[in-house]
């Protein structure tokens, strides 16, 4: 009632109420350039007061003359907006985004635009431009009182001393498995006993069976699965005129190529400590695979005839047959190499066990990766034998061959593109560009760790790379699942991109977390 009197009094006295000028925007933004890594990164810090939020879709960060490549951009929360009755993606807390410059620019103008609201009020869209330079970390329009220096990028290693590793898991996980892993880690059950004690618990025979089965399942990973029709075509082409026995033998040789190569791969990892599947990050590897597939597709179209006798140095009548065996063996080897880009939990288990047994003086342990390859090879002799049941070649067979040729050509194109993509990614600065992404990932790691410490949240690290097929599959399926997204909101999520896992600095980080292959997920909890 007092209000009525006041307004009435004011009006009665004829006093015009002054028109208020409100406080400036409650949001603030700052941008810094960090040059401690091999390539500079841009970090943009947003301050969002309690009860306020920024609309994720309206946050735009642009650099003059080049493109900003996101390294770590936090995922917004999805909230129900009671006013519009729709779900909105918003940032409700302070957050930082880290980018790298696609092309080096110094100084660079970074323009940050955003728009936010409080519970009942919306603030005008804002836009700020910062002039950032390597020599001047806090540049441009930086808000007074918030001078930022590169100091905030501490070494991730020192920050790690405040955390305990609560769990670690590798390979493709579906939603249920990932959630179980997260829950298990937080309840203290995420640490599975090490490979050696699992081996002792299960017994040698059971472990061998388990490894064979695991190997069998490797055929179903996204790395090998697309190759199955190709390999069937190659084995089939050799088996078409032959007997069941010949088909079986061809399949067997194919499997042998697979098993031996996979065994060798494992051996290299165990003995040298390199990262599994890293070969797939090489441009040359992808290029060679593309060429091999291209030649094979030409053979399918009868454009060329691969005459392996030349390499056999033999003119014996059986040479051509032998040649086909050689081709099939090589394809088996190629399949195993490509399979290296897909790491399943079983692969990690085998590598760890092999390393542990070898470390105890049991050289037989080194045979285990071969066993895994053998498991992968198991179905192939039978597949080869099965192909020999095909009717005798005729006109239809030519069309089947052409169809396979198309599939193989597609595979060649894919690997050719992969090679090109890796070449492009490495191009900007041949000497330092290679390290740019991992370095930036290091910054994101250190940032994420300190954020987790501030908020008292556990940390979820996803080690990935663009060449890692299972990582991409995870991003497209499990990590998109709303249940997973919701669960991960309780974590500080760090995506660590290990594009070149065998080279520092990525290698240091992977070694620290005992990551042998990708994808690997690690859960850290702050020490009490």
């Amino acid at each position: 009632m007092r209000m009525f009197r006041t307004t009435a009094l004011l009006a009665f006295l004829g006093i015009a109420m002054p028109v208020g000028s409100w406080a400036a925007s409650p949001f603030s933004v700052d941008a810094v350039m960090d040059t401690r890594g091999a390539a500079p990164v841009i970090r943009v810090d947003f301050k969002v007061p309690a009860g306020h939020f920024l609309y994720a879709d309206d946050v735009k960060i642009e650099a003059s003359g080049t493109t900003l490549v996101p390294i770590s951009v936090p995922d917004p929360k999805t909230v129900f907006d009671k006013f519009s009755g729709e779900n909105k993606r918003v940032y409700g807390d302070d957050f930082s985004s880290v980018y790298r410059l696609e092309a080096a620019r110094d100084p660079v103008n970074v323009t940050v635009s955003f728009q936010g609201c409080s519970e009942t009020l919306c603030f005008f869209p804002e836009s700020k431009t910062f002039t950032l330079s390597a020599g001047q970390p806090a540049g441009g329009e930086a808000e007074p009182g918030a001078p930022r220096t590169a100091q905030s990028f501490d070494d991730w290693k020192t920050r790690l001393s405040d955390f305990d590793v609560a769990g670690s898991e590798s390979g493709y996980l579906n939603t249920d498995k990932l959630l179980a892993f997260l829950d298990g880690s937080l309840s203290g059950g995420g640490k599975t006993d090490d490979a050696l004690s699992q081996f002792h618990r299960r017994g040698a025979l059971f472990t061998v069976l388990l490894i064979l089965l695991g190997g069998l399942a490797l055929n179903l990973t996204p790395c090998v699965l697309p190759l199955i029709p190709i390999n069937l075509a190659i084995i089939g082409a050799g088996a078409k005129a032959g007997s069941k026995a010949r088909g079986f033998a061809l399949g067997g040789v194919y499997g042998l190529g697979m098993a031996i190569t996979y065994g060798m791969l494992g051996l290299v990892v165990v003995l040298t400590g390199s990262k599994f599947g890293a070969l797939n990050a090489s441009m040359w590897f992808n290029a060679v695979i593309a060429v091999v597939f291209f030649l094979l597709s030409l053979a399918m179209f009868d454009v060329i005839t691969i005459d392996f006798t030349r390499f056999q140095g033999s003119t014996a009548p059986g040479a051509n047959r032998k040649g086909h065996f050689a081709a099939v063996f090589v394809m088996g080897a190629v399949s195993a190499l490509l399979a290296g880009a897909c790491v399943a939990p079983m692969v990690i288990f085998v590598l760890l066990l092999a390393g542990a047994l070898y470390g105890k003086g049991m050289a037989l342990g080194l045979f285990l990766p071969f066993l895994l390859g053998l498991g992968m090879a198991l179905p192939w002799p039978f597949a080869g034998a099965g192909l020999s049941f095909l009717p005798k070649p005729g006109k239809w067979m030519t069309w089947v061959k052409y169809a396979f040729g198309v599939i193989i050509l597609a595979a060649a194109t894919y690997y050719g593109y992969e090679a090109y993509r890796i070449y492009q990614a490495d191009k900007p600065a041949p000497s330092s560009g290679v390290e740019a992404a991992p370095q930036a990932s290091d910054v994101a790691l250190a940032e994420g760790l300190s954020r987790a410490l501030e908020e008292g949240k556990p940390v979820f690290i996803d080690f990935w790379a663009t060449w890692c097929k299972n990582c991409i599959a995870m991003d497209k399926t499990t990590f998109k699942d709303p249940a997973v997204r919701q669960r991960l909101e309780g974590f500080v999520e760090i995506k660590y991109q290990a594009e070149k896992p065998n080279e520092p600095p990525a290698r240091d980080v992977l070694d620290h977390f005992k990551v042998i292959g990708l994808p690997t997920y690690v859960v850290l909890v702050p020490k009490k």
Partner: protein
Amino acid sequence: MIKKPGPFLASLLILLSACTPPGGKPEKPTPAPSGETAPLDFTIQNLVNPGEPLSLASYKGQVVLLDFWATWCPPCRFELPALNRLYGELKPKGFVVVGLTVDNGPAEQVAQAVGKFGLSYPVGLAGRDVQQAYGGIRAVPTKFLLDRNGNVVKQYQGVVPEDQLRADVEAVLAL
């Protein structure tokens, strides 16, 4: 620094601020711009009826509720039905709502966006000058209640409950 308001005005403001919704507390008050003509007057483009301009002076003698809003602002949109209702109810008593959008972009485009809300009261496009005349609008919704003489008797920031708005308007109408 902005001129300090007199002690009398300051005490009134304190009284007033006790009634304004949270977040609606006017800070750093600036004295109303003084001038011979109505200081807060404006003539702007009318988005609902493009033929005739929208002029505050033409509502002299009526109680006016100025609503600064934007089509992209969810809380603003939330209030529109209430304002529409209030206008329909109290229009016969000499009350008008004037919507002032702060949207950026070509007038036709904004008019199209505004058209979707089916507002019965006049809506104009408020440019920087109009925003500046009202103290530099920084956030929406922001509303001003003007008495029959064109004096600002109340201002609001943020969503205001419909009941409170109706009570305030009726109080000013009853003067």
